[in-house]
């Protein structure tokens, strides 16, 4: 069946360093992937989305490229800030017309 896998539960980095949060997926349908960010005590909000193979999509300094050959949609940022500390979810639109989420990755940025 359809699934989304985020491998890291917690990523801790010092401010100014680059980050990559991993996301891989399985689906038999044409993939449509999302990244959502949830700050402490807030609701998740859309960060970026894509359905186009090998095209980079960017928002608020974050970027991701959908690679259908490797079923991946990793989230990256070249220089993390303290305000980037949050829970990040990768999500997949499935062929059952629903959106399923990965387990999430906590990003903790140190001063």
């Amino acid at each position, binding site marked *: 069946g359809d699934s989304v896998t*985020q491998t890291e*539960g917690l990523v801790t980095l010092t401010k100014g360093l680059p980050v990559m949060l991993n996301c891989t997926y399985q689906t038999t349908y044409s993939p*449509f992937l*999302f990244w*959502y960010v949830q700050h402490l005590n*807030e*609701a*998740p*909000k*859309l960060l970026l*989305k894509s*359905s186009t193979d090998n095209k980079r999509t960017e928002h608020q300094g974050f970027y991701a490229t959908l690679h259908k050959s490797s079923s991946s949609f990793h989230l990256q940022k070249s220089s993390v800030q303290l305000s980037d500390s949050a829970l990040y*979810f990768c*999500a997949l*639109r499935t062929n*059952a*017309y*629903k*959106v*399923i*989420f*990965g*387990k*999430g990755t906590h990003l903790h940025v140190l001063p």
Partner: protein
Amino acid sequence: EAAVTQSPRNKVTVTGGNVTLSCRQTNSHNYMYWYRQDTGHGLRLIHYSYGAGNLQIGDVPDGYKATRTTQEDFFLLLELASPSQTSLYFCASSRDINTEVFFGKGTRLTVV
């Protein structure tokens, strides 16, 4: 920005109790969803709907019922609440399946 309103924001009930969580969206969105969020499990889909009167089963439906009475209103019912249903519940909506999902602020449910 799209508005999704959940009520109540916090609820405590006893084991075996009856609970209804309410959700209203004023965005004219077609899709509405109920998720639960638990540490180590992320967001898990309970039920969803793509229009008034429609109901689809999600990935963790056991112990939950849902009703979509109007385009705006989506309810989650726990008829015999159990401690395993203690969680943070999010309602969400989207215009269609490929567009942004907008979340409400969540309902924290505790079953004692």
